[in-house]
């Protein structure tokens, strides 16, 4: 299509979209941020002025075409503006994870050779100062929040406001140069570089072109009919591709408003106040919310509990059918209406989900019970499957075809192929350009024809055409007797229990499966309080015999459920232990997006794995932990190992395959 070569409707970059929005929707809100207890807002016209001023200021500082500019901090309009201002100059923004430790930040800054850093506050400034000696190319840092920075050496440090002021002052002088730079970007020039958190090895810089971002934004906005007037809450890490697509790509394409919470801690309150119409959350957020609802319902009065139970039963039966537009009898509809007034409406309002028209979850498989709970309430929660390398979208569920066990049909413009070994491959206009300074990895991931390996194993369902993901391709393995081993499948079932925060199932190449369990401190703590179980620390609670009994109950129920699946019945958990510490990204056990790093966990807790496969009833262990400020400590514990009941399976070897 000729028009694509020119850029969608002649719009070839984010700054070009900004121009269009300022012209066509100048008076509509583009950004809101809660500050000083009040929602402050900026229209598209004001946004353009802010961004231009910053761009002029950055131009004055010497930001050149093709430079990388790192942006670190939580979701704030100023930081989104910074990214667009950088693009306006023909440079490339590189958002970094704000909670990354100093050495991770250093790796990225050195790898991309950022000359400029835009940081949110003292915490981020300190982190960059700590590592700047190792970054020879580093020149200037710009900060947003001056608190605590008054006494800092300001030779290579300046305030965001000051840079903007300089920009405003120099508009006459530098305006022409800015206009020239703005017209420069081609459709295949780089729009943004995002570092993947990397479940294995060092992070890789994924380079996404204007074409990738704009074509993806256009296709996906069309898929869900996103338009001006949509409200989103930007609270997920800015370094994550999803946030870039939702809060910049789609927002600029469709021209809707991005709302930034007051602080990460107030996100739930802010969510309620904004009541977004388009909402994304990883399964973890939905899980946590559901856990909290359940905890609070257990503490509610008997009448409320009965109301809740009754109407939730109705909702589970009727709600998803109504959402999918399937026939529902009149009495059922009326019953559901009543429930909407008494239970669902108020509940959705409390959750801040009253107005959600399109909701997505992705990143991890979501427990069917959790998924159905939200659908039952009438929230149009759907699943999508995506990757940084694809500019997010690979598959997604169309309205009316939503199920908890699939990830949907290929997104518009995406082709899917399943390889011999079950690995999913895709090709689309959103496919990344390359990994920065890593041709080897680029070749390993993307072939000459543009097919990208996802690293996930899955299959396309015959009847519906939906993709089903089983597990990471490299995690899917075989047990000693050849039975299929898919740990994620079992872990997800375990994690559905509010008391279980995280689970790691092991068993590849072994004769049986074992598991590490992390308890959820909120849920188990509340439970302990109700049964007056005293404990002084996380570790003590995690090791309490009553807690172990409870977890054992959960494991055995999961075993019974796993046993019913012919393919995976070998994955029942024979022995488990409850870990004495929470798995944490700071200790490298999880990725920054909170995915389990199996290999690292397996190595770090090798003694525990050994004990699980040995006959011991308890095991003594010492573990190194890293505190938030980077200091290290050790914790010691003696963990009890429990045997769980398994359902005997008579398996006629692996079914079919």
């Amino acid at each position, binding site marked *: 299509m000729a028009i694509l070569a020119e850029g969608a409707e002649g719009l070839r970059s984010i700054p070009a979209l900004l121009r269009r929005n300022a012209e066509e929707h100048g008076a509509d809100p583009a950004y809101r941020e809660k*500050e000083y*207890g*009040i929602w402050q807002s900026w229209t598209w016209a004001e946004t353009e002025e802010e961004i231009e001023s910053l761009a002029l200021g950055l131009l004055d500082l010497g930001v050149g075409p093709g430079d990388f500019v790192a942006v670190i901090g939580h979701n704030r309009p100023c930081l989104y503006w910074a990214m667009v201002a950088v693009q306006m100059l023909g440079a490339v923004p590189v958002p970094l994870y704000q909670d990354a430790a100093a050495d991770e930040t250093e790796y990225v800054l050195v790898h991309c050779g950022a000359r400029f850093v835009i940081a949110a506050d003292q915490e981020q400034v300190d982190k960059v100062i700590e590592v700047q000696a190792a970054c020879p190319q580093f020149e200037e840092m710009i900060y947003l929040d001056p*608190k*605590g920075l008054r*006494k800092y050496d300001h030779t290579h440090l300046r305030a965001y406001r000051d840079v903007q002021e300089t920009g405003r002052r120099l508009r006459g002088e530098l305006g022409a140069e800015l206009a020239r730079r703005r017209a420069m970007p081609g459709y295949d020039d780089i729009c943004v570089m995002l570092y993947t958190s990397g479940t294995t090895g060092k992070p890789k810089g994924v380079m996404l072109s204007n074409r990738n971002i704009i074509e993806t934004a256009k296709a996906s906005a069309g898929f869900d009919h996103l338009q001006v007037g949509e409200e989103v809450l930007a609270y997920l890490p800015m370094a994550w591709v999803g946030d870039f697509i939702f809060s910049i790509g789609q927002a600029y394409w469709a021209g809707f408003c991005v709302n930034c919470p*007051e*602080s990460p*801690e*107030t996100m739930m309150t802010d969510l309620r106040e904004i009541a977004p119409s388009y909402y994304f959350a990883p399964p973890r957020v939905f899980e946590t919310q559901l856990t909290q609802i359940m905890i609070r319902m257990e503490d509610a009065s008997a009448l409320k509990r009965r109301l809740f139970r009754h109407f939730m039963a109705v909702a589970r039966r009727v709600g998803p059918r109504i959402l999918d537009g399937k026939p529902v009898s009149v009495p059922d509809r009326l019953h559901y209406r009543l429930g909407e007034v008494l239970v669902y409406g108020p509940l959705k309002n409390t959750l801040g989900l009253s107005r959600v028209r399109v909701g997505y979850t992705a990143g991890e498989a979501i427990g069917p019970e959790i998924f159905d709970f939200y659908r039952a309430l009438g929230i149009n929660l759907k699943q999508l499957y995506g990757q940084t390398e694809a500019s997010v979208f690979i598959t997604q569920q169309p309205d009316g075809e939503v199920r908890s066990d699939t990830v949907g049909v290929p997104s518009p413009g995406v082709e899917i192929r399943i390889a011999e070994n079950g690995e999913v491959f895709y090709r689309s206009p959103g496919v990344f350009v390359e990994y920065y300074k890593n041709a080897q990895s680029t070749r390993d991931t993307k072939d000459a024809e543009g097919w990208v390996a996802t690293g996930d194993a899955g299959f396309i369902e015959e009847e519906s055409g939906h993709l089903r993901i089983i597990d990471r391709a490299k995690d899917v393995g075989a047990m000693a007797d050849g039975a299929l081993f898919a740990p994620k499948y079992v872990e997800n079932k375990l994690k559905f229990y509010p008391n279980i925060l995280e689970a790691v199932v092991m068993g590849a190449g072994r004769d049986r499966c074992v598991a590490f369990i992390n308890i959820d401190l909120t849920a188990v703590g509340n439970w302990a309080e109700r049964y007056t179980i005293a404990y002084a620390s996380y570790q003590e609670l995690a090791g309490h015999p009553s807690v172990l009994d409870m977890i054992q109950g959960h494991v055995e129920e999961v075993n019974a459920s796993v046993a019913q699946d012919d393919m995976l019945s070998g994955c029942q958990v024979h022995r488990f232990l409850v870990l004495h510490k929470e798995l944490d990204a700071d200790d490298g056990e999880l990725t920054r997006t909170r995915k389990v790093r199996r290999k690292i966990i397996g190595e770090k807790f090798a003694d525990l794995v050994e004990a699980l496969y040995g006959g011991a009833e308890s095991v003594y262990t010492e573990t190194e932990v890293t505190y938030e400020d980077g200091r290290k400590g050790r914790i010691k514990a003696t963990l009890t190992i429990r045997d769980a009941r398994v359902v005997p399976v008579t398996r006629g070897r692996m079914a079919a395959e």
Partner: protein
Amino acid sequence: MKEVGGYLTPDGRQIGGTLMEMRNITLRFGGLVAIEDISFDIHEGEIRAIIGPNGAGKSSMLNIISGFYTPSAGEVWYKGSKRPAMKPYEVARMGVARTFQNIALFEGMTVLENVMTGRLTHMHAGLLSQAMWWGKARAEEIENREVVEKVIDFLEIQKIRKTPVGRLPYGLKKRVELARALAAEPSLLLLDEPMAGMNVEEKEDMSRFILDVNDEFGTTIALIEHDMGVVMDISDRVVVMDYGKKIGDGTPDAVRGNQAVIDAYLGVAH
């Protein structure tokens, strides 16, 4: 009043001239002498600590500064003039705000409402106007709310803005108290054992906030504290009291080396 110039701290901050001066203060309760002939000054912009063992008379001294007690003898000089005997609210109007050792917040009110009470000295609308939420009262409320919100932002307590104080843990209540005092935009902030009963992390947080307040707003701070470690770390100058007498005065390092101070703290064979 004798003109005392400022000085430069080791970390390079310029400290201003004298803000408050206590001259030969004595405080007697009947026959008990709580404070005996103590003089010291507080400079503009500095963090001044008053330390001493239990019963040394620290809190009494703070109560004199805040106007709660009137000294039996001696003079309090504030901003260049001698301060007559005053009621505490009059002292508050002169720009002195304080926190209390045993938290004195309105437990049933939200954090926001508590911090708003810190603005009372800045509100001048009449009862009628306030009751009707009209005219001056309304404009004032908005103006004051703005100041309060900045303080809430500064002390990072947005999350608990609407939470009743009674439900908060101890460490946060202390922070809310500090917020209320700050909301008054004081020129002199009195902190009565701000770290008492805190764990290490809460102490670190509180120390950081005290330093930030001093740094950001240039607020002069006088604090009483038990925890020697904290005091020595954050104060510019320290007054040491024992049995109602001043036994030391100077920079933390000077005070630490003072024999009388060591004796008072470690005990000495008499």
